[in-house]
Every structure is written in C-alpha cells, then in structure tokens.
C-alpha cells in the first residue's frame, strides 16, 4: 500500500472518529440507530488492521521476490561451491521499496551471500545495474536506478570489497523483469541486477 493511501485512510479514520464524538441529536420522532463509541472504535481497529495487512502484504511481496531468487536450501560454504552455484548467488537480484534506494533486510542478506564469495574470489568483477518500476517519470527513474546501484555498491564496499571491482549503471524503467500494473510486478522490477566477470 502506498504512503498516500495510508495517509488517506488514517485521515478518514480521524474524520470518522471526530464525527462520532460530535454527533448532532436526532430530531424528535426520527428513527435512528445510535452510533456508539464502541462501534467507532471497532471501525477504527478494523481500519488499522487493514492498513497493517496491506503493509505486510507489500513487505511480503518484496521478500517473496528476494526468496524466489535465493532458493530455499542453505547454500554450502564457499570452498565447496561449484562455479554454477557461485554464479547463481552472485547474480541474484536485490529488491527495493517504492522510490527508495535503502537496502531492505532481505536485500542485505542477499548481498552478504555475495560478499562471502567476492572475498574468496578477488578476480571476480561485477557490474551493478539499477532498475525501477514504471510508476515514476522515465527520466527520474534513470536517476533512481543509478542511486540504487550506487547504494548496493556502497554496501559491498563497506563490507571490505574493493571499489575497483564494481561498475554501476542504470536502466531506469527501460528493462522491466515483470510485465503488469500490480504490486507483484512492480516489486520484481524495483531491483539491482549483477553482471559477473572473471568467474571461472
């Protein structure tokens, strides 16, 4: 759920709550069903639950996108991995929130798995390609993709990998991984991809 919808729902909740506190008395003879504070509180709780559920669904979609590419099995240690296993781990995309370049918890976990291999294989170089979903403007998205690629590179550098091993590039919203105008597709498109060089 977007921030604007959350704010709108919270505002609606506030307005409804205010209305419940300042009810006008019904005219004499009018048949009315009294609205109790308990009803208003229940509605508010339902609204808050709805907001929490939507927020959780959005988080889950990002985590699902990350997990789908990470596999479910615990990877073997670096010394016993095959080249193909290392390539798969290094190439796993990392995913981002809407209009954000902050690394999520699951994205950091995916990068940590890469760091392990990069420390072990100093000959490997990587080009980090930033991508976005298509909800912002296309020119803005080019810049946002670059910011995501740079944030990803920064994380790898601060964990001891030499900056000279990375190049960054942005494709904005030009090369979507998934088609569709829904959160599931958007979550898959807000990503960094990794091109691997020197892995033998």
């Amino acid at each position, binding site marked *: 759920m977007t921030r604007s919808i959350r704010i709108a729902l919270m505002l609606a909740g506030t307005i409804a709550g205010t209305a419940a506190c300042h009810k006008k008395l019904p005219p004499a003879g009018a048949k009315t069903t009294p609205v109790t504070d308990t009803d208003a509180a229940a509605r508010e709780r339902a609204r808050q639950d709805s907001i929490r559920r939507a927020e959780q669904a959005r988080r889950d979609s990002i985590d699902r996108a990350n997990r789908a590419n990470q596999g479910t099995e615990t990877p073997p240690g670096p010394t016993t991995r095959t080249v193909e296993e290392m390539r798969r781990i290094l190439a796993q995309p990392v995913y981002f929130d809407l209009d954000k370049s902050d690394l999520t918890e699951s994205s950091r976990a995916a990068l940590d798995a890469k760091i392990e291999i990069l420390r072990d294989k100093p000959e490997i170089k990587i080009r980090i390609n930033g991508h976005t979903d298509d909800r912002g*403007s296309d020119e*803005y998205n*080019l*810049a946002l993709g*670059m910011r995501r690629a740079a944030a990803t590179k920064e994380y790898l550098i601060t964990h001891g990998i030499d900056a000279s091993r990375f190049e960054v590039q942005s494709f904005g919203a030009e090369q979507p991984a998934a088609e569709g105008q829904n959160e599931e597709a958007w979550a898959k498109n807000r990503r960094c991809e990794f091109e691997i060089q020197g892995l033998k």
Partner: protein
Amino acid sequence: MISRFTIRTLGTALTAFALGAPLNGHAQDTTTKGVRIGLRYDVGVKPGILVLPINGANGDSIRTMLMRDFDYGDRLTVITLDSANAAALVPASPGAYNYSVIAQMGAQVLVTGSVSGGELKVESFDVAKAGPYQRGAFALRGDALGPDWRMSVHVAADEVENWIFGSRGVAATRILFDRKGDGKIYIIDSDGANERAVTRAGTCMSAAWAPNAQSFAAACTGSGGAMRIHVQDFKSSTPRWVHSTGSLSAAPAFSPDGSTIIYASSDDDGVTDLVSIGVGSSGAAHSITAKRGGINTSPAFSPDGQRIVFTTDRLGTPQVYISNVDGTSPEVLSELITGTSQKTNPDWSPDSRSIAYQSTVGGEFQIFVTNVRDNSSKQLTSEGRNQEPSWAPDSRHLVIASSRSGPSQLWVLDTESGRVRQLTRRGANHRLPAWSPYLGSQK
C-alpha cells in the same frame, strides 16, 4: 469544432445575388465592438471560416488540409461543406460571392485559393464587409503531397490565422518522440502525417529540438552501455557530437540561443546533478545543481534563457523547481507541497507565462499548468495516465503522452478549451514528445 451546415436552397440563392461591395485590399480598423486583431470578432466566440474549392492540381487535398489545420488550431469554427455544395458557392464572375448566404452559414471569413506554377495563392474575404481582406502566395516545395509540399500548405494555413488573429497558427510544426522499448527517435507532423524514424543505431530517448530546428539532441545508449548526449542534424543519420560525464547522461535541453545544453549527469555515487556544456565543446561540463538533493533531472529553459525549471527530490518526493541558470535562487514552483504527490517533467511556455508539468493524482500522473506570475495551478487531464507535456509555439497547445485510449499514444491538448485529439496511432508506448519551433520559415 467543426460545424455542419446543410444548404437546401443554395442554387437559387446563388443565381439571385449581385455584388455591390467595393473591393478593398486593406483591412479597416474597427475598434467599436468586439476584439480588433485582424477581423472583428467577439471574445469567447470562435469566428466561422468557410474554405471554397481550391482550383488547380491537388486542390481537394489542399482544401482538406487547410480546413483540418484551422480546426486543429482551436480558434476558428470550420464550416464543412462537401465539394459539390462548396462548388455551388463559387460565383460565375470572379469575386462576386454571395456574402449573405455565406454569412447565414456562420462564416465570418471566406477563404479561396488556386494552384499554378508551383504556387498556392490564397485569398481571404471579410464576410461582414462583403469584400477582400488579405491575400498571399506560398511556394509549394518538393513533390506534390510529399512532406515538404504538405509543410508549405501548413504555412499557408498558419498565415491565414495570422491575418485573422495577429498570430500564426502552429500547423507548420513537427513533434519528436520515442517509444519505450523501441530505441529510435521519431518525428511526426503536427497533423499526424509523415511519421518516420530519425535515428538508426543505438537506443535513444528524451529528444530535444535545437532552437533553429536544424538538429536535435537525445540521450542515447551506444554499444558501450553508458547513456550519452547525442546531437544530430536532421539531414544526417549519425550524431555530429557525442558527450557524456559520469556514468549516465540523460534528459538534454537546448538553451534558447542554441549554444548550450543542460542535462542530467549521474555519478558513481548515485547523485544526479544538472550540468551545462557548450554544444560541440570537448571541455568539462559545469555543475548547476551542485549535489543539492540526490536527483535533479528533466530540465527546461525559460524563453529568455535566464532561468531553468527542473525536477528535484531535495524535498523528498520529486517536485518542480525554478532557479537561475547557474542554479542559484532555487524556489519550488508548485504552491501545494503534498507529501506524496510527485511533480515532474516541466516545460516552460514560449510566452514565458506558464509551466506545464505532470503531477500524481490518486497514483496516476495528470497534466497541470502553473501560472508563473501568481503561482496558481490548473489540472487539465483526469482520464488515464497523462504525462510529459511539451508546449507548442503558440503557448496554447500541449503535446502529451496519454494512456486514455490504451497503450500510451501522443495527444494534443488545447489548454484553453480542454479539447484533445490523438496525434499518433501506429505502435504503442509513445513518450517524451517535444514540439518543434515554428518551421514555416525553413527552406
């Protein structure tokens, strides 16, 4: 809008009239009522215009084009008559028009024309005064019905509007654009004709006109992978100048004198700044936004070249800012800073008065125009996703990318009436249109 008029007694009327009005080669100043620009007309009422059959080669095509241009200009009400009914209004004696019948049809302006010797002669008549108003001759360039020939007819249409309103129409213009996922820059006439690609190699987007309309800039990704600024002459199929800084160079805009390009330059640290460079220069670009905010992009110049308008996220969500051309004195354009509303892709109108941009409404982009003087804003669209506005030379029409009919096409939006017409029909995912300067004075 085109009005339809049925003539039942035209033949009778034509045989019954006699011309009594004196021929008068010059418009008289009539300032008593209504608006005096060329002809007299009332504020808020679009004068009616009737185009009679054009004599000579391809006269029917010329008449159709003139009528369509007048209609698309949104300042005239075009009286549509089929050829037979229109022909019945042509008098046996030259100049002896039945003005009373023509006036009854709602026409205040009568236009006639003829083609001979590669030239289109056009004459206009003031129906109220029952006499000639203005006339002109226009060379028909290139092959009949070809792009240059059609542009010549558009020039004539624009000039007729100039006679009437004191300002030219915008028929003799073209629009550059690209299609997402396609990679080429395309050009199309303002009436939707002559669509063709102007780039071949590479993947390009964000085309911008050079002010002299001889060349254009675009952001293109070559074989090396990095996006760079290209400047290409229309007469060539390859760029004459390629420039880049940092990791990615995008969203170019020419200064009004054509000497400078500003564009968005992204560094490896993820910051995107606006920078400026002399066109053709091999030197370094000068920073404009100097790392104020993480993202600065989509610049456009004010018509006097002294200021720029652009998108920046220095307040968090992207907003439209104005600053001096060197980046000093930045101020936010939009009067309302709503936390989640993104405002991007601004364009400054040629008359300096307005800035068009896109802003999210309910999660979709819509077109807005802000009056620069009082900062008041007006929402112009609400159907589908509408974005990337670019002003026509008349500062009245915008070309936009819109999903109102399905996958994004280009549409022309009249900011005064709200009327829209579809410009492109082939393919999908049209975007980032750029409306040319007036092309009528080009050879």
